[in-house]
């Protein structure tokens, strides 16, 4: 159980918080991105929430599978890095993607659903990997698994709550949508760097330990 002392518990929790924050912030911005092309009716929100929920569910599955093969902070850090990289294009290409969908599909219900699929599936699936993978990193024994998972749900959902609040109350008042997206991508990059640094410090032993357990 050496890896439990070496894995930086507060860091993993903080990263799970960050993941939750980014997911909900992007979801809220999604509604504002789609509005000029598809309106802001209940079905536009329906499209966005459907796509986010479905993508997260796929991400959870992938995260669980991933944790069966490789367990290390480096892999965890890579997930944040890929999340950062796949989120960034939203700030560059979302407009042209939505314009294309708008010209192709007349019904705003299917238009908003298609646009949500194009824009949000990839980054949201990636971000969905974080939660189950965090559980694997922190659980040392069956007895404590419920408590560890509970704490992780707590921090990541609290992160989601804060992401929603900060975005809807302040970010949209202070910044342009694309700047917030770039900022969130930057935050994921920082999170990734932090995890890589922590992985470097704890060395490679914990991975071997973890694989054995």
């Amino acid at each position, binding site marked *: 159980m050496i890896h439990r002392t070496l894995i930086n518990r507060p860091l993993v929790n903080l990263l799970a918080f960050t993941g939750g924050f980014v997911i909900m912030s992007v979801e809220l911005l999604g509604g504002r991105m789609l509005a000029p092309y*598809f309106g802001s009716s209940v079905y536009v929100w329906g499209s966005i929430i459907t796509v986010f929920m479905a993508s997260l569910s796929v991400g959870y599955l992938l995260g669980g599978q991933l944790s069966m093969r490789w367990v290390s902070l480096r892999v965890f850090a890579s997930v944040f890095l890929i999340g950062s990289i796949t989120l960034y294009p939203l700030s560059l290409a979302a407009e042209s993607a939505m314009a294309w969908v708008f010209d192709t599909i007349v019904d705003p219900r299917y238009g908003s659903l298609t646009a949500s699929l194009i824009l949000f599936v990839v980054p949201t699936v990636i971000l969905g990997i974080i939660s189950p993978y965090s559980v694997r990193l922190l659980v040392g024994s069956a007895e404590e698994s419920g408590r560890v998972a509970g704490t992780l749900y707590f921090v990541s959902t609290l992160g989601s709550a804060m992401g929603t609040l900060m975005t809807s109350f302040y970010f*949209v008042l202070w910044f342009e949508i694309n700047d917030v997206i770039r900022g969130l991508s930057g935050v994921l990059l920082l999170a990734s760097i932090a995890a890589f640094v922590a992985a470097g410090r704890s060395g490679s032993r914990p991975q071997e330990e973890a694989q054995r357990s």
Partner: protein
Amino acid sequence: MTRWYWLGITLAALMILTSVSRSADAKIVHRERSLYSTVLVNKTDNILCLAFSIKRDQRNQSCIDTRAPRDMVFSYTRMMMATLLFNPEPRRVLVIGLGGGTLPSAIAELYPDVIIDAVEIDSAVVEVARNFFNYRPHPGTSVTVADGRLFVKRRASLRARQEVQKDPGYDLVLLDAFNGDYIPEHMMTREFLTELRSIMSDDGILAANTFALSDLYHHESATYASVFGQFHNFRLPETGNRVIITGKDDLPNPVALADRAAELDTRLSRYGIFLTDYLELIEGEQDWKTDARVLTDQYSPANLLQGAPR
């Protein structure tokens, strides 16, 4: 014993509160929950009103006097009609936000040959206009149930793709989509106004019924100025509304406006509109903070800005 005593007092207090908050003689004739709000039709004596109850205080959107249906009860509808000063012979009109149908009815009556496209997001409002406000679109009117922004964007997109522009565009646009409780933020941005401008004719005039009271005033003004350059503000002293009047071309000078007012006055007086009185209330001067941030699709916190006092 005391528990029953307090329960009694609470119940009595609740009954008094609810009876006070209900307005004395407004009778609800129709109530319908739609996709967007609860649509209410209420009647006080002979005044029939359409209201949206999103919050507890329902604000009347559109009212008619059943004894004199032409009389425009609301000052803002009269203000919107004053736009005819800037374009006295409209041929193609776009109305965004139907309400009780007051504006398109009056325009169709004044100009029987006019073509009107009326866009309303809520099909329940269209039904209520027909069933309770006796709105009957004239043969040149088509009513579309759609989000105003999407209608305009679709038109703009079609128009841009046509190589030969047969469609001369709208020469009068009446934007009446803001109900004071919640602003559709995607209809108050530079991109929206640019799309709207692109489907107007070269001498097209736009009138927007909007706000005068909050921080949003400065941002909205800066946004209109960024797309149309100059515009006129039309405010009646007693209201929190303003009507922005602007156009693609230069707006007519005061002398020309006064001439037109004299011409149109008799035609509009039967709607309770007295143009010559309005003239001095239409101002072209710039009284907003010019450094206010322009609203765009990327930055459109209109509802948050409206919360801040001007």
